[in-house]
Each structure stands twice: as structure tokens, then as C-alpha cells.
């Protein structure tokens, strides 16, 4: 589903972030991407949804090398990749419903479809009761649930989560990871970049560790550290 072949990334200011990355993630896998801050986790994620382009190598997502993707095709790539963030990136002046519906509206879906799918997504993340709340009125965990609902409302085959528990307390973090696990079991490939040692250790999933821009470990049923 996701394949990185000899990928390197340097930013225009001359800083090298990733070196010779080779990763292959299969369909419906659940993968943790771990490593200290600055190891290149976020950059690697951004390469997948073409928020950044690699300086070298191939980034293949669903059989397409997104590194050579025509700019006009990027929106269609992104509709197949759900992304969730540490800072949620919810639109502040819109309700939870509107935030989630937004991801469908941009695809030009009819209103009835939007309503049905948004309700389904909100139900899945346990936010039906908060549909009319504004982001300001939500707790951190609720914000992240809303963000997840937005990411999956299109039923994308891939879900990327960049530090999804970074701003959450341990209990809420665990709830969010359970939710991601549930989504993974609905045939979605899930990649989670995280610092959260206890979660990685408890989940016992495939772990890819990055350090200084290099893959230093790729282990099935791994823990946060070796």
C-alpha cells in the first residue's frame, strides 16, 4: 500500500532530514513510526500526502509514485488519505458537523450523502452528541475524535496520524489509539507517528524507528525501544 524506495529529503535551507529510507507497508497494516523529535517522522508523513516532495527516491502510495504526481492530481490523492494532527487543525468557526462535512463538500458530494456519511463517521468516533458543538467547546479528546471523523469520512484506504496523542492525557490517549485500532480493523492502513512509549509497548504492533533521518529498526510486534 505504501512503499518508500531510497527516499531522501533535504530542505532548501540545506538541512538534511531523511537519508535513504526504504519502507514497505502492506494493506491494512497498523504501523507505529517512533523516534525522538527531529528524527524526521513528520517529514516522512508529509511525503505521503504530498505536503512535501522528496529530494530523491520514490514514494509509492496505492501504486502511484506521488513524488511525480502532477499538481492537479494532488487533491485526488489526498481524498484517499485521511490525516490527523497533534493540533487537530479543526476550523474554529464551524461546528463539529460542518468540520467533518467539509472533507466531503470539497469532493462535490450531494447534500444527502454528506449528511448520512458525516453521521456515520461521528457515530464511529462517539461524537454524535457533540455534532453541533464548536471546537472551542470541546475537550482535547473530543477535538481529536472530531479530527478523526473528518479524516475517515471519505472512507480512505490510508489513515495517517501525526502525534495524535501529543496533547492528551494518558486515558484519553489510550481511547484515541483504540479508536485508530478500530478503524484499522475496518480495512484501513494506519500509520501512527508517536512519542508515546506506553501505547507502543502495549499495542505490540509493527514498529519503525527513525533516528537522525534513518530507519534504525523495523520490527513486527515491537516495543518503543529495543
Amino acid at each position, binding site marked *: 500500500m505504501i512503499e518508500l524506495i531510497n527516499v531522501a529529503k533535504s530542505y532548501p535551507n540545506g538541512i538534511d532530514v531523511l537519508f535513504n529510507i526504504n519502507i514497505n507497508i502492506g494493506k491494512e497494516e497498523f504501523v507505529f513510526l517512533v523516534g525522538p523529535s527531529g528524527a524526521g517522522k513528520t517529514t516522512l508523513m508529509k511525503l505521503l500526502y504530498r505536503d512535501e516532495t522528496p529530494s530523491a527516491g520514490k514514494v509509492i502510495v496505492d501504486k502511484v509514485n506521488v513524488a511525480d504526481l502532477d499538481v*492537479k492530481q494532488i*487533491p*485526488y490523492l489526498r*481524498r484517499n488519505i485521511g490525516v490527523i494532527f497533534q493540533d487537530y*487543525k479543526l476550523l474554529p468557526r464551524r461546528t463539529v458537523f460542518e468540520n467533518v462535512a*467539509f472533507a466531503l463538500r*470539497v469532493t462535490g458530494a450531494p447534500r444527502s450523502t454528506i449528511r448520512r456519511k458525516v453521521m456515520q463517521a461521528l457515530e464511529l468516533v462517539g461524537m454524535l452528541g457533540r455534532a453541533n458543538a464548536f471546537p472551542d467547546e470541546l475537550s482535547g479528546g473530543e477535538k481529536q475524535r472530531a479530527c478523526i471523523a473528518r479524516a475517515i469520512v471519505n472512507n480512505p484506504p490510508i489513515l495517517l496520524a501525526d502525534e495524535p496523542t501529543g496533547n492528551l492525557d494518558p486515558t484519553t490517549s489510550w481511547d484515541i489509539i483504540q479508536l485508530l485500532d478500530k478503524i484499522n480493523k475496518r480495512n484501513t492502513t494506519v500509520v501512527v507517528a508517536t512519542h508515546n512509549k506506553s501505547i507502543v509497548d502495549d499495542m505490540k504492533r509493527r514498529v519503525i524507528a527513525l533516528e537522525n533521518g534513518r530507519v534504525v529498526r523495523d520490527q513486527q510486534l515491537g516495543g518503543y525501544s529495543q
Partner: protein
Amino acid sequence: MFSNLEFFLVEAFRSFYRGALMSLVAVGTISVSLVIFGLFVLLVLNLGNVVGTVSSKMDIAAFVEKDISLEQAGQLQLALTKIPGVERVEYISKTEAWRKFKSEFGEKLELDDVVVNNPLPETFNIKVRTPDTLSSVAKQIANIEAIDEVRYSGKYVDQMRTLMDAIRIGGAALVILISFATLLIVVNTIRLTVIARETDIYIMKLVGATDTFVKWPFLIEGVMLGVLGGLIAFLVLKLSYDAISFRLVQALPFVPLIGDQRILTLVYIVMVLGGTALGMLGAHISVSKVLKTEV
């Protein structure tokens, strides 16, 4: 596209009233620029009108010293009419000129007792179509054999012509310059509303919105700003022009101001359309800039 239209309209209105202050600033800027633009256009049109009216009142006088028959006079008049650029030729016979002269000056004098032979020449008053052709027509008339003398206020006309050319060229250049300045101001004002929504744009793009999709609500908002600004400018300009021209006509009745409603309406329509175009173009330029920097 049409299924999205409602969404775009709602988004545009929402953005308009959520950023009410910024929207008002943009509308105000567009209005002020358009009023300046409109005042200038009216000024140039009126100056042109004044110069044009004055010049069009100038005509050429051609004199024939010797007596000619009525038939000869008719032939000459025809020949003069045929010169390109001539609008109308008026023939004043020697006798008629003498009668006029007498009625104007001769009431107290028995001129007929003093003057035996009528000393006045046969006269043709020639009106040209445009003041520009005055001197060239005058030269052609002078070349006609039967004509002895041609008089027209040549130097004055040439000065008028130069002045009018200057007003036209300078006016056009200034109007273009003001248009550009207005566009720049509008682009920058709308850019502020776009920058205020940069996060929205980023998120829209992250969830897979195409550039066109992102652009539409902004373009609609730009058109709204432009139409509103244009209408306000129209009202301000119309009220002030009517007031100014009313007073000016009372104070200086001989100044030929443009009162033709068709011309004025055209200026006003151009202003409102111009405002609309400015708003849309401004929004387009601003959004495109932001879209280029966002991936």
C-alpha cells in the same frame, strides 16, 4: 459545479459577515478609488466638452472681392461644401452684408449718402466638422482661385487643439494609472481577508479541495465587495456631480457641462462594472498568491 454553487455562496456570505470589518474596509477602499476614478473621468470628459464646444464655434470666413452673380455664388458654395471636413457653408452676399452692417451701425448715419459703392466683399462662412481639420480646410479654401482672402483664428485653434490632445492623452494615461493604483489597493485589501483565512485554505487543501474549489468562494466574495463598492461610489458620484453641476450652471451659465444623461449613465455603469471586475480580479490575484505558497 451547480451542486457546489450553494456551498460557495454560503461560504462567501459567511466570510463576508464574519470578517465584517475587513469587508467594510475593502468596500470603502473600492468606493473611494472608484469615486476618484469617476470624478477624474467626468473632469476629463467635461474639459474635453468645453474645449470641443469652444472650438466647434470657430469657423472660417472666405472673402471674394469682385462682384459675382448668384449663379457663381451657388457654384462656389457647392465647391466649398465638397471639401472634405466641411460641415456647412453659409453664403452672405455683398448686399446682405451691407444691410446687416447698416442695421448694426448705420442707424444714426445716412451711410448710403456717404458711401456710393458697397465696400463689403462677398462672404462665405464655413463650418468644419471637427476643429482638428480647421487649418487644413482653411488652406484648401485659400487655394481656390475665386477666393481672395481666408480668415480664421488659426493660432488660437491650434492651441486649443494641442490643449485638447494633451487632455485626451494625459487623461487616458492618468485614468489607466488610477485604475492600476485602484487594483493594487483592492488586491492588497482582499489579500488581508484571504490571509485571515489561510488556515482554512490549508485545511481545505489537506482534505483534498482543488484550487478551483478553494478559489470560488473568494471570487464570489470579491464580486460582492466590488458591486457594493461600485454602487456606493455611483451614489456618491451622482449626488456630488448633480450638486456641483447645479451650482456651476447657476454661477457660470456659459460653461458647457455635460448634462447628457446617456453619457453620465454610461460612466456610472462603467464604474459599477469596473468595481465588480476590480473585486473579482483582486480576489483572484490574492487567492492565487496564497495557493501558490501552500502545497
